[in-house]
Protein backbone atom coordinates (compact mmCIF):
# COMPACT_ATOMS: atom_id res chain seq x y z
CA UNK A 1 0.00 0.00 0.00
CA UNK A 2 1.02 3.59 -0.47
CA UNK A 3 3.64 5.39 -2.41
CA UNK A 4 6.68 3.69 -0.88
CA UNK A 5 9.68 4.14 -3.12
CA UNK A 6 11.55 0.94 -3.83
CA UNK A 7 15.29 1.36 -4.14
CA UNK A 8 16.10 -2.26 -4.93
CA UNK A 9 15.67 -1.75 -8.66
CA UNK A 10 12.94 -3.01 -10.92
CA UNK A 11 14.53 -6.41 -11.61
CA UNK A 12 14.85 -8.18 -14.93
CA UNK A 13 12.66 -7.08 -17.79
CA UNK A 14 10.74 -10.16 -18.89
CA UNK A 15 8.57 -8.60 -21.57
CA UNK A 16 7.74 -5.30 -23.21
CA UNK A 17 5.09 -3.76 -25.41
CA UNK A 18 4.88 -0.64 -27.53
CA UNK A 19 1.36 0.64 -27.46
CA UNK A 20 -0.12 3.33 -29.73
CA UNK A 21 -1.07 6.31 -27.53
CA UNK A 22 -4.79 6.03 -28.26
CA UNK A 23 -7.75 5.58 -25.89
CA UNK A 24 -8.97 2.65 -27.99
CA UNK A 25 -5.76 0.78 -27.07
CA UNK A 26 -6.38 0.91 -23.32
CA UNK A 27 -8.08 -2.45 -23.47
CA UNK A 28 -4.91 -3.93 -24.99
CA UNK A 29 -2.89 -2.54 -22.07
CA UNK A 30 -5.30 -4.08 -19.54
CA UNK A 31 -5.29 -7.47 -21.24
CA UNK A 32 -1.50 -7.38 -21.45
CA UNK A 33 -1.25 -6.57 -17.73
CA UNK A 34 -3.75 -9.29 -16.84
CA UNK A 35 -1.89 -11.92 -18.84
CA UNK A 36 1.49 -10.98 -17.38
CA UNK A 37 0.05 -10.98 -13.86
CA UNK A 38 -1.57 -14.38 -14.30
CA UNK A 39 1.63 -15.84 -15.79
CA UNK A 40 3.57 -14.50 -12.80
CA UNK A 41 1.14 -16.13 -10.37
CA UNK A 42 -0.86 -13.19 -9.06
CA UNK A 43 -4.37 -14.22 -8.04
CA UNK A 44 -7.34 -12.90 -10.02
CA UNK A 45 -8.09 -9.99 -7.65
CA UNK A 46 -4.48 -8.79 -7.62
CA UNK A 47 -4.24 -9.20 -11.40
CA UNK A 48 -7.38 -7.03 -11.74
CA UNK A 49 -5.84 -4.37 -9.49
CA UNK A 50 -2.61 -4.41 -11.48
CA UNK A 51 -4.54 -4.06 -14.74
CA UNK A 52 -6.52 -1.21 -13.17
CA UNK A 53 -3.34 0.65 -12.19
CA UNK A 54 -1.67 0.04 -15.57
CA UNK A 55 -4.82 1.40 -17.24
CA UNK A 56 -4.59 4.56 -15.11
CA UNK A 57 -0.90 5.06 -15.89
CA UNK A 58 -1.43 4.57 -19.64
CA UNK A 59 -4.45 6.90 -19.55
CA UNK A 60 -2.31 9.60 -17.90
CA UNK A 61 0.41 9.04 -20.52
CA UNK A 62 -2.12 9.37 -23.36
CA UNK A 63 -3.83 12.43 -21.89
CA UNK A 64 -0.95 14.35 -20.41
CA UNK A 65 2.27 12.81 -21.70
CA UNK A 66 3.77 12.46 -25.14
CA UNK A 67 4.41 9.32 -27.22
CA UNK A 68 7.71 8.44 -28.90
CA UNK A 69 8.45 9.36 -32.53
CA UNK A 70 6.30 6.40 -33.65
CA UNK A 71 3.32 7.49 -31.59
CA UNK A 72 3.85 4.78 -28.95
CA UNK A 73 3.95 4.55 -25.18
CA UNK A 74 6.33 1.92 -23.78
CA UNK A 75 5.22 -0.75 -21.35
CA UNK A 76 7.61 -3.22 -19.77
CA UNK A 77 7.24 -6.02 -17.24
CA UNK A 78 9.91 -6.74 -14.63
CA UNK A 79 10.16 -9.63 -12.19
CA UNK A 80 12.14 -9.40 -8.96
CA UNK A 81 11.63 -12.27 -6.56
CA UNK A 82 7.96 -12.32 -5.61
CA UNK A 83 7.37 -8.83 -6.97
CA UNK A 84 6.06 -7.96 -10.41
CA UNK A 85 6.63 -4.43 -11.65
CA UNK A 86 5.04 -2.73 -14.64
CA UNK A 87 6.78 0.31 -16.08
CA UNK A 88 4.77 2.77 -18.21
CA UNK A 89 6.94 5.31 -19.99
CA UNK A 90 6.04 8.30 -22.10
CA UNK A 91 8.26 10.97 -23.62
CA UNK A 92 6.68 14.10 -22.27
CA UNK A 93 8.12 16.33 -19.62
CA UNK A 94 6.19 15.74 -16.44
CA UNK A 95 4.33 18.83 -15.30
CA UNK A 96 3.01 17.75 -11.94
CA UNK A 97 -0.05 16.06 -10.53
CA UNK A 98 -1.90 18.99 -9.07
CA UNK A 99 -4.01 19.10 -7.13
CA UNK A 100 -3.52 15.50 -6.03
CA UNK A 101 -6.71 14.04 -4.66
CA UNK A 102 -8.97 16.88 -5.72
CA UNK A 103 -12.32 15.28 -6.39
CA UNK A 104 -12.87 17.18 -9.62
CA UNK A 105 -9.46 16.30 -11.03
CA UNK A 106 -9.37 12.99 -12.91
CA UNK A 107 -5.61 12.95 -13.01
CA UNK A 108 -5.18 13.43 -9.29
CA UNK A 109 -7.84 10.81 -8.61
CA UNK A 110 -6.22 8.37 -11.00
CA UNK A 111 -2.85 8.68 -9.29
CA UNK A 112 -4.31 8.24 -5.82
CA UNK A 113 -6.23 5.15 -6.98
CA UNK A 114 -3.01 3.68 -8.41
CA UNK A 115 -1.27 4.05 -5.06
CA UNK A 116 -4.19 2.42 -3.25
CA UNK A 117 -4.40 -0.73 -5.36
CA UNK A 118 -0.64 -1.29 -5.73
CA UNK A 119 1.99 -2.30 -3.18
CA UNK A 120 4.27 0.47 -4.47
CA UNK A 121 4.10 3.25 -7.05
CA UNK A 122 7.23 5.01 -8.21
CA UNK A 123 7.31 8.09 -10.43
CA UNK A 124 10.56 8.72 -12.29
CA UNK A 125 10.90 12.01 -14.12
CA UNK A 126 13.81 12.11 -16.53
CA UNK A 127 14.97 14.54 -19.19
CA UNK A 128 12.33 14.10 -21.88
CA UNK A 129 10.60 11.08 -20.39
CA UNK A 130 8.34 10.13 -17.53
CA UNK A 131 8.07 6.61 -16.13
CA UNK A 132 5.56 5.26 -13.64
CA UNK A 133 6.50 1.93 -11.99
CA UNK A 134 3.74 -0.13 -10.47
CA UNK A 135 4.65 -3.04 -8.21
CA UNK A 136 2.62 -5.88 -6.78
CA UNK A 137 3.78 -8.96 -4.90
CA UNK A 138 2.54 -12.52 -5.07
CA UNK A 139 0.95 -13.44 -1.76
Amino acid at each position, binding site marked *: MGTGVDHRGAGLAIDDLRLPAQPAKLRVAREYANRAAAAFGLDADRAYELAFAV*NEAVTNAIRHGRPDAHGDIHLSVHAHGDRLTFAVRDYGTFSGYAPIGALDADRGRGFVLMTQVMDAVQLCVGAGNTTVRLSKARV
Partner: protein
Amino acid sequence: MGFFYIGDEATVGKSSHGDAIAVMVAGGELDFAASRQLRDRLTERIEAGTRRLILDLSGATFVDSTAIGALVSVATMLNELDGGVLLVVCPDENRRVLRIFEIAGIESLIAIHRSRAEALRELAVAG
Protein backbone atom coordinates in the same frame (compact mmCIF):
# COMPACT_ATOMS: atom_id res chain seq x y z
CA MET B 1 -11.48 -0.82 -28.38
CA GLY B 2 -13.02 -1.94 -25.12
CA PHE B 3 -16.62 -3.04 -25.23
CA PHE B 4 -19.08 -0.75 -23.49
CA TYR B 5 -22.69 0.32 -23.77
CA ILE B 6 -24.76 3.22 -22.54
CA GLY B 7 -28.51 3.19 -22.87
CA ASP B 8 -31.74 4.85 -21.85
CA GLU B 9 -34.52 2.87 -20.27
CA ALA B 10 -38.15 3.86 -20.06
CA THR B 11 -39.01 6.11 -17.19
CA VAL B 12 -39.88 3.57 -14.56
CA GLY B 13 -41.33 5.42 -11.64
CA LYS B 14 -42.39 8.54 -9.95
CA SER B 15 -40.99 10.10 -6.84
CA SER B 16 -43.42 11.04 -4.08
CA HIS B 17 -43.46 14.56 -5.56
CA GLY B 18 -44.58 13.16 -8.89
CA ASP B 19 -41.32 13.90 -10.70
CA ALA B 20 -40.26 11.47 -13.35
CA ILE B 21 -37.34 9.21 -12.50
CA ALA B 22 -35.10 8.30 -15.40
CA VAL B 23 -33.10 5.09 -15.41
CA MET B 24 -30.06 4.70 -17.60
CA VAL B 25 -27.75 1.71 -17.89
CA ALA B 26 -24.07 1.59 -18.67
CA GLY B 27 -21.94 -1.51 -18.81
CA GLY B 28 -18.87 -3.20 -20.12
CA GLU B 29 -15.53 -1.47 -19.74
CA LEU B 30 -15.99 2.18 -18.80
CA ASP B 31 -12.53 3.58 -19.45
CA PHE B 32 -11.18 6.77 -21.04
CA ALA B 33 -12.42 5.57 -24.43
CA ALA B 34 -15.96 5.49 -23.00
CA SER B 35 -16.10 8.15 -20.30
CA ARG B 36 -16.71 11.16 -22.53
CA GLN B 37 -19.74 9.46 -24.09
CA LEU B 38 -20.93 8.47 -20.62
CA ARG B 39 -20.69 12.10 -19.47
CA ASP B 40 -22.34 13.39 -22.64
CA ARG B 41 -25.26 10.95 -22.54
CA LEU B 42 -26.01 11.67 -18.89
CA THR B 43 -25.67 15.41 -19.47
CA GLU B 44 -28.09 15.23 -22.42
CA ARG B 45 -30.71 13.66 -20.17
CA ILE B 46 -30.29 16.44 -17.63
CA GLU B 47 -30.50 19.10 -20.34
CA ALA B 48 -33.71 17.44 -21.52
CA GLY B 49 -35.17 18.04 -18.06
CA THR B 50 -34.32 14.95 -16.02
CA ARG B 51 -33.59 15.76 -12.40
CA ARG B 52 -33.81 12.33 -10.76
CA LEU B 53 -31.46 9.99 -12.47
CA ILE B 54 -30.57 6.40 -11.66
CA LEU B 55 -27.53 4.98 -13.43
CA ASP B 56 -27.45 1.20 -13.30
CA LEU B 57 -23.87 -0.09 -13.50
CA SER B 58 -24.73 -3.74 -12.78
CA GLY B 59 -23.16 -4.72 -16.10
CA ALA B 60 -19.98 -2.68 -15.71
CA THR B 61 -16.88 -4.85 -15.48
CA PHE B 62 -14.44 -1.96 -15.30
CA VAL B 63 -14.73 1.66 -14.16
CA ASP B 64 -11.65 3.89 -14.30
CA SER B 65 -10.88 7.32 -12.82
CA THR B 66 -12.15 9.18 -15.90
CA ALA B 67 -15.53 7.41 -15.72
CA ILE B 68 -15.67 8.23 -11.99
CA GLY B 69 -14.84 11.82 -12.97
CA ALA B 70 -17.80 11.78 -15.38
CA LEU B 71 -20.11 10.54 -12.61
CA VAL B 72 -18.82 13.17 -10.18
CA SER B 73 -19.36 15.97 -12.69
CA VAL B 74 -22.89 14.76 -13.49
CA ALA B 75 -23.72 14.41 -9.78
CA THR B 76 -22.37 17.90 -9.13
CA MET B 77 -24.43 19.28 -12.00
CA LEU B 78 -27.60 17.62 -10.63
CA ASN B 79 -26.92 18.67 -7.03
CA GLU B 80 -26.84 22.28 -8.16
CA LEU B 81 -30.29 21.95 -9.73
CA ASP B 82 -33.45 22.09 -7.67
CA GLY B 83 -34.40 18.55 -6.71
CA GLY B 84 -31.59 17.02 -8.71
CA VAL B 85 -30.01 13.74 -7.66
CA LEU B 86 -27.89 10.98 -9.18
CA LEU B 87 -28.07 7.48 -7.75
CA VAL B 88 -25.74 4.75 -8.94
CA VAL B 89 -26.65 1.07 -8.82
CA CYS B 90 -23.82 -1.42 -8.32
CA PRO B 91 -24.70 -4.83 -6.83
CA ASP B 92 -22.58 -6.77 -4.34
CA GLU B 93 -21.66 -9.28 -7.06
CA ASN B 94 -19.82 -6.45 -8.79
CA ARG B 95 -17.37 -6.28 -5.90
CA ARG B 96 -14.31 -5.22 -7.89
CA VAL B 97 -16.06 -2.12 -9.23
CA LEU B 98 -17.60 -1.45 -5.80
CA ARG B 99 -14.14 -1.57 -4.25
CA ILE B 100 -12.88 1.04 -6.73
CA PHE B 101 -15.81 3.31 -5.79
CA GLU B 102 -14.96 2.81 -2.10
CA ILE B 103 -11.28 3.59 -2.63
CA ALA B 104 -12.18 6.65 -4.72
CA GLY B 105 -14.26 7.91 -1.80
CA ILE B 106 -17.15 9.12 -3.92
CA GLU B 107 -19.91 7.78 -1.67
CA SER B 108 -20.14 11.17 0.03
CA LEU B 109 -21.03 12.70 -3.36
CA ILE B 110 -22.96 9.89 -5.04
CA ALA B 111 -25.17 7.37 -3.27
CA ILE B 112 -24.30 3.84 -4.39
CA HIS B 113 -27.21 1.40 -4.12
CA ARG B 114 -26.94 -2.36 -4.35
CA SER B 115 -30.04 -2.79 -6.53
CA ARG B 116 -32.30 -0.76 -8.78
CA ALA B 117 -35.26 -1.49 -6.49
CA GLU B 118 -33.32 -0.09 -3.53
CA ALA B 119 -32.48 3.08 -5.51
CA LEU B 120 -36.12 3.54 -6.53
CA ARG B 121 -37.24 3.07 -2.93
CA GLU B 122 -34.74 5.72 -1.83
CA LEU B 123 -36.18 8.21 -4.33
CA ALA B 124 -39.75 7.36 -3.35
CA VAL B 125 -38.93 7.97 0.32
CA ALA B 126 -36.81 11.05 -0.31
CA GLY B 127 -39.46 12.51 -2.58
